[in-house]
């Protein structure tokens, strides 16, 4: 893990020089309150409790190790999520127990193609979704490729802005917008197929 991977932008971050006491306070008061969100994000990426736990622990260790790269008053949660996402890509994705192997470039190019317009008008009724339980919606979310799943989690469950997501994911804001739009359509497609299979639409 390089220091660049913990920085929240491409510019060189000014290093701080926190005393041990200050570092401990920042860690305890600014980082630890996000442990619940971090664990849920990790679990939704790995689908495994032990892997999620390891990923969160690893993230916090890195956060402490590179705490001098964190500037007080900036967004600690976004900084931690960025570290977690990089750890997942660099280390955990390789051994993830996720069964489906997806060619993300293929998925991106498919959803960037003109064919997307054909699939945009999924007929998913609000009443149908209201009948579903959390497990079913979660399964549908888990069924979409991780890069698309991630933007839905960051936006809808964690409340990050496009700008924050852009920094966490290292992608331009325009890509955040288009990926999020495609991700939500993919989720709706999954839910519509599931609803049809389960007879929710009758």
């Amino acid at each position: 893990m390089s220091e660049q991977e913990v920085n929240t932008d491409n510019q060189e971050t000014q290093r701080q020089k926190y005393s041990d006491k200050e570092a401990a306070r920042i860690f305890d008061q600014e980082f630890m309150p996000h442990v619940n969100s971090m664990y849920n994000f990790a679990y939704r990426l790995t689908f495994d409790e032990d892997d999620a736990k390891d990923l969160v622990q690893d993230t916090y260790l890195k956060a402490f190790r590179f705490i001098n790269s964190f500037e007080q008053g900036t967004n600690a949660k976004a900084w931690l999520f960025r570290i977690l996402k990089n750890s997942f890509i660099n280390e955990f994705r390789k051994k993830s127990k996720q069964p489906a192997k997806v060619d993300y470039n293929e998925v991106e190019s498919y959803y960037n193609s003109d064919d997307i317009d054909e699939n945009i008008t999924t007929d998913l009724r609000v009443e149908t979704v209201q009948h579903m339980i959390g497990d079913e919606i979660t399964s549908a979310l888990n069924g979409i490729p991780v890069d698309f799943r991630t933007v839905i989690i960051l936006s809808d469950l964690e409340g990050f802005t496009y700008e924050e997501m852009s920094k966490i994911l290292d992608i331009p804001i325009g890509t955040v917008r288009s990926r999020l739009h495609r991700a939500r359509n993919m989720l709706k497609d999954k839910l519509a197929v599931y609803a049809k299979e389960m007879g929710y639409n009758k």
Partner: protein
Amino acid sequence: MSEFSDWFKDTFKGCYCEKGNLVDERRFSEIVQLVLDNEADEESRAIFEEKIRTCVKSCGSFEKEKSLRETIKQKLFDHKKDIPNDLAASIKKSINL
């Protein structure tokens, strides 16, 4: 994100409201996303609000998307995983806090 307001205007230009015909549903759906995500600037939001106030089809599409989004979000939110009891303590222990 003021560049969006032109995009908003351009999208709505082709909408023949009196025929209940929203010409570009894909672009409208992207605009709705920006509005619901609070990412549309003031000018764009004003254009959008005027549009849904005067166009039945746009208003219906917006309300449906809003309800779908809220329902999905709430169900996912309610289905969060409980954090292991010892996780916070073991993190603190690992860095001697």
